[in-house]
């Protein structure tokens, strides 16, 4: 082989860097498209980067009586969001060495740890709205959990493994795998989970300022300065991670690098970000065509997602579909 090959650690680092620096761009594009849909000009595509830069320069204010947990929470969450991209197919079709360090459930646990540390930091602030947001986020997180589990079961019995790389490979293998009901149902269920987890309508308005409707947004109300920047950055990263799982594992695992040549790996970066922006635009359209559910109606939405995930497992396990 005369061609230059990228070493595995380099590709692994590129995975992280893509998520790290691509996430604010994807959020910016979504915000821009959303502005256009609403008849505004919308913020610039690079606005999230400016916001982050501004926040990093600002001073950090800590509420009276709160302990170190308040400041450590955002850092833990941010490092969790840096670990998850190592476990999922971000750029490559083949598993990288660290990709086998954890399966889908492992990734889910790390995302849950991130959510937990943000929630506990919010609770530590002692402010009522942050605590409200934290407790709501935990409650609905617990209700989303069974759906995620059943999606993982569906993935597990389709591929006989619980590695995200394996499902992506199965989906690529034939069109029969795409139209099989179990896969369609699991993909839609996961889509609804992403909708709920990224704080989108019908579960939550992500751009509102009304504290009573807030779930995820409410947790960070008391943070400022660099920790707040980490939280904001982390939530854009979480969004891109979930989009990546949706795209590269369930819906469209094409356009990934199949070998280690620098050109194909580098080409996979814009391909992923492009696909994420398309998915983001779909989310923006949903955001602008539905109304927010009342807080106590959210269980109905989650029950629907759960139903789809359970049916996916049933149809496959007992029907061979």
């Amino acid at each position, binding site marked *: 082989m005369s061609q230059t090959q990228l070493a595995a650690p380099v590709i692994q680092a590129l995975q992280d860097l893509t998520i790290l620096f691509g996430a604010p761009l994807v959020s910016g594009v979504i915000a821009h498209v959303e502005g256009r849909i609403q008849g505004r000009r919308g913020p610039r595509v690079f606005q999230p980067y400016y916001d982050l830069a501004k926040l990093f320069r600002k001073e950090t204010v800590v509420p009276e009586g709160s302990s170190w947990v308040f400041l450590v929470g955002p850092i833990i969450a941010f490092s969790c969001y840096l670990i998850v991209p190592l476990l999922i197919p971000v750029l490559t079709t083949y598993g990288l060495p660290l990709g086998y360090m954890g399966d889908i459930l492992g990734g889910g646990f790390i995302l849950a740890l991130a959510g937990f540390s943000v929630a506990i930091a919010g609770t530590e602030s002692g402010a009522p709205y942050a605590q409200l947001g934290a407790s709501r986020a935990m409650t609905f997180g617990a209700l989303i959990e069974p759906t995620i589990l059943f999606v993982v079961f569906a993935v597990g019995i389709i591929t006989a493994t619980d590695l995200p790389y394996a499902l992506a490979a199965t989906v690529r293998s034939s069109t*029969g795998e795409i139209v099989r009901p179990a896969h*369609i149902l699991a993909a839609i269920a996961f889509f609804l989970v992403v909708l709920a987890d990224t704080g989108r309508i019908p579960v939550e308005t992500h751009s509102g300022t009304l504290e009573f409707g807030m779930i995820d947004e409410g947790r960070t109300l008391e943070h400022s300065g660099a920790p707040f920047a980490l939280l904001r950055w982390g939530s854009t990263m979480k969004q891109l991670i979930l989009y990546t799982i949706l795209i590269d594992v369930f819906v469209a695992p094409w356009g990934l690098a199949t070998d280690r040549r620098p050109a194909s790996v580098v080409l996979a970066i814009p391909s992923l970000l492009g696909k994420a922006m398309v998915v983001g635009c779909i989310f923006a359209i949903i955001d602008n065509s539905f109304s927010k559910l009342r807080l106590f109606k959210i269980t109905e939405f989650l029950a629907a997602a759960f*139903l789809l995930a*359970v*049916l996916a497992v*049933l149809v496959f396990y007992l*029907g*061979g*579909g």
Partner: protein
Amino acid sequence: MPHAAPSTFTGAVDVIAVLVLLTEFAMLRAPMLRSQVRLYAFQSLVVTALAIVVAATRHIDEIYVLAALSFILKVIIVPRIVLRLLSRAEVSLAGSSAFSVATMTLIAIVMSVFAFFSVGALHLQSTALPSAALAISVAVVLVAFVLIILRSDVVSQAIGFFSLENGVSVASLVVASGLPLIVDVAFLFDLLVAVVVFGVLMRIHHGRTKTLSTDSLDRLKG
């Protein structure tokens, strides 16, 4: 070992059957009586599509006739009749039922799990038969029963009964697509009789109690 992907016919039939089941679940949550009737029309349309798929792949021309009949009857006439009855009754929202929507959905999920396991216990092994679709049609019937039992308005009960027939026709299309046409047509006329009966029931009930809810029926005096 990963299972092999199903054939295109099985996959398509399964997806259509899943759609029928999902509309059945949507009926559980529909708060507006009109939207429930529309869901029934949509479900019947999906069943018609299933009939066409079966007719095209198995080359049974009789089923085209059945598809046309069921389209005219179940997608157009029955929803029309129920909607007209509803517009006379001037009631648009179903009353609150005994359980919340999420609870009803969970109960219905348990019922469909039961359906899947009971069909699975029959050990029907056939390459020609999409067994998932059979299990789904049993699940549709059971969820229709859940709808009839848990929702306390006459329209839900009527629609539940009609959609139960949809579940049965999914089963008959998948399992016994060679059934003589006259049997299937007899089923459709059964449905017509049911529409008349439920129509009379709705009118009398509304005339007596000025509501479509069945909650008042447990009192001895009206």
